[in-house]
């Protein structure tokens, strides 16, 4: 991915030197033309074209913002309810992610989502121990939310 971005910058500078005008607008035109060239030559790269990954990162950011706001409204409802009937608990979750940065990102997202907090990560990065505010009824749909997160992260790293 880094190689493709670097190549795109190189093509943009090449376009600036070809036209002889050194301005932001000619850089942008060169960048877009370079993107087109990379798209045409995409079968010669090892990885997929990088713009898809940028798009996946954008989608992850949007999902993250939405979940952050939802989490806060949920905490608000729990804290301000006159009679709290919490059923907290720690459950374990096996993740399929492999790289260290992916697990870090997943635990960051889990910590900021409704009613979950990562307490511990196993030594081989394979298992997360998650403290849930409502371990009884939320566990099933929390796992579906996290499937969403995990899938979104895999989409980025694929």
């Amino acid at each position, binding site marked *: 991915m880094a190689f493709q971005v670097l190549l795109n910058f190189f093509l943009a500078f090449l376009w600036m030197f070809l036209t002889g005008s050194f301005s932001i607008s000619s850089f942008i035109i060169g960048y877009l033309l370079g993107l087109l060239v990379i798209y045409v030559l995409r079968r010669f790269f090892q990885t997929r074209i990088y713009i898809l990954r940028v798009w996946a990162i954008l989608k992850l950011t949007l999902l993250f913002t939405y979940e952050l706001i939802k989490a*806060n409204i949920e905490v608000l409802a729990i804290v301000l309810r006159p009679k709290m009937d919490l059923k*907290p608990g720690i459950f374990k979750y096996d993740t399929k992610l492999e790289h260290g940065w992916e697990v870090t990102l997943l635990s960051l997202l889990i*910590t900021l989502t409704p*009613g979950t907090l990562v*307490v511990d990560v196993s030594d081989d990065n394979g298992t997360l121990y998650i403290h849930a505010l409502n*371990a009884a009824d939320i566990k099933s749909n929390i796992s579906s939310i996290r499937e969403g997160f995990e899938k979104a992260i895999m989409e980025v790293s694929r």
Partner: protein
Amino acid sequence: MIDISEYFVVAFILIGAFFGVVTAIGLIRLPDLYTRTHAASKSATLGVMSVLIGALLFFFTEEGMFNSRIVLGIFFVLITAPVGGHLIARAAYNTGVKLAPESIQDDLAKKEQFEAKKKKNSSRD
């Protein structure tokens, strides 16, 4: 135009302050350390972020000054607050702080078993 932006500034700052109050109430009312960490790491993050966004909008619309340090501040708070919550919870668990009495399950207590089982399975393969 300025009037509309003023409403946004006021809304952001009030929401941020409100979430700060909710965090404080949560810290008092919730039963144990882990549930308190929930309130502290989530509501405080969004509260501080909203106040910072309000300040950014205020200085941008009133003074015409775009303060990029506020944007960096939002980013840093967003990254570091959940890590702080995680580390506090982990340190508490490892030093033996008990969960609230109404807790219904605790898989972390069985961590050793899970690890041992996993090791056995992987050595069998």
